[in-house]
């Protein structure tokens, strides 16, 4: 696997984070994951400010965004990214515990590229997350300006 690209994962739940990294790890995608624990930190990373001011340039190949997070939630991050000329081409995948109609509609209205309900069954969760990782970090050709490893 030569051409791994960076994944930004925004997830506030420690348990979900571990499960997600485990799932990505099963397909050797975990090394390329940058983890932030709330929406504000996700924006800091994308805008290269705060504690991410010194990170190398370039956008992640994809952002996996938990919908419910403290401070700035996933929908707010999504809204800001899609409203910004320099960020809007980054694919955003919403990750959520439930398929609530209002969240689904709102996510797509704001320009989400995908909406994934975390399956309760762990086997299916691993499958879903690793498929996501494989598709966005390996298969998909990202917009210009995305970087490979740091």
């Amino acid at each position, binding site marked *: 696997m030569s051409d791994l690209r960076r994944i930004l994962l925004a997830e506030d739940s420690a348990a979900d984070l571990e*499960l997600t990294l485990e799932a990505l790890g099963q397909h050797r995608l975990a090394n390329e994951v940058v983890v932030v624990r709330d929406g504000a930190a996700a924006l800091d990373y994308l805008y290269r400010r705060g504690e991410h001011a010194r990170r190398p340039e370039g956008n992640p190949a994809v952002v996996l965004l938990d919908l*419910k997070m403290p401070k700035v939630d996933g929908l707010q991050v999504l809204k800001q990214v899609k409203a910004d000329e320099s960020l809007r081409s980054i694919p955003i995948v919403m990750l959520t515990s439930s*398929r609530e109609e209002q969240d689904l509609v709102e996510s797509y209205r704001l320009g989400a590229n995908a909406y994934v309900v975390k399956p309760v069954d762990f086997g299916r969760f691993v499958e879903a997350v690793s498929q996501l990782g494989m598709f966005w970090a390996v298969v998909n050709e990202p917009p210009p300006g995305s970087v490979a490893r740091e």
Partner: protein
Amino acid sequence: MPPAHARPPGSEPVDILLVDDRPDKLLAAEAVLEPLGERLVRARSGEEALRHLEQADVAVMLLDVHMPAMDGFETARRARGRERSRQTPIIFVTADDDDATLAQGYALGAVDFIRTPIVPDVLRAKVAVFVELFRTRRQLEREAERVLSLNEELEAFSYSVSHDLRAPVRHVGGFVDLLRRRTEGTLDETARRHLDTIGRAATHMGRLIDDLLAFSRMGRAEFMRKRVDLSRLVRELRSELGPPGQVDWQVNGLPEVSGDPAMLRVVLSNLLSNAVKYTRTRARPRIEIGAQPGEAAETVIFVRDNGVGFDMRYADKLFGVFQRLHGSDEFEGTGIGLATVRRIVHRHGGRTWAEGTPDGGATFYFSLPDHGEG
């Protein structure tokens, strides 16, 4: 002897607005209406009456037609033009009962006339009717508000259930699986069995949450009435249920009905998968789906199987939430499916019932009212 139209005990007094430029007439009206036990508000002019109508809801307004400056008709016209007093019932008080006066009054939205000199019993009875109407309407409005806020609460509740309850269930299942992998080959059989039990419990909990949410959604979701071809629906559902296996399906004479397609799909999906589940132990499972005559202007659909059946003594329990007549070790399930079926059928205005004998199969029925060409 108590007055004939007394205020119900415990209820708030409501406003009755008395409008007359003459204090003696106001006093007379007050004396007549006093026994009603409501709040009597006086206004000495049309302007004063309009000011009060801006600030309070009035059960009924007793309006003198002949007043200097703004007369009764003009006052009524302006009251009608304002949001808050648009619906306020007006009883005109007048000595003239010629047709022209009456016509003008009714055109301005008068609900009644009272002729002077006033007959006390008549005035009191008329006003009492409007007071009662006002009180009933206000009660209904409050009730509607309460239902609305309850609905919003329920909405917020199921939103948190689906988000916040699902996450820990997913964590239990996920970490049990990780633990299982990490301890592979090191645990004895009992320990492995415990892990399996935890995993199965988490999966079951996940299913319960999903089913409960579906149940709650079916009560709230918008209802879309269309023509639904039941035989086509059954065909689709059968292919979703997987390969036909050994089941002998008999599907006959299913009509087109009028109803919500997504909801009716849930109904039949539940009934069909139940039938498959409870005939699983049969050597020759047989499931029959059809229609039969019901009462006038309704269609009755039935799903009959030769499965394990049930004891009619418990027939009432079948359609309740979390009610199961079989142990979950015997037949898996959450006990919410038939409750969802009943809820949907009720929303269609129909009925559900079932017949069965232990070990002798079961028949589930639902009726749908005919809805013209709907």
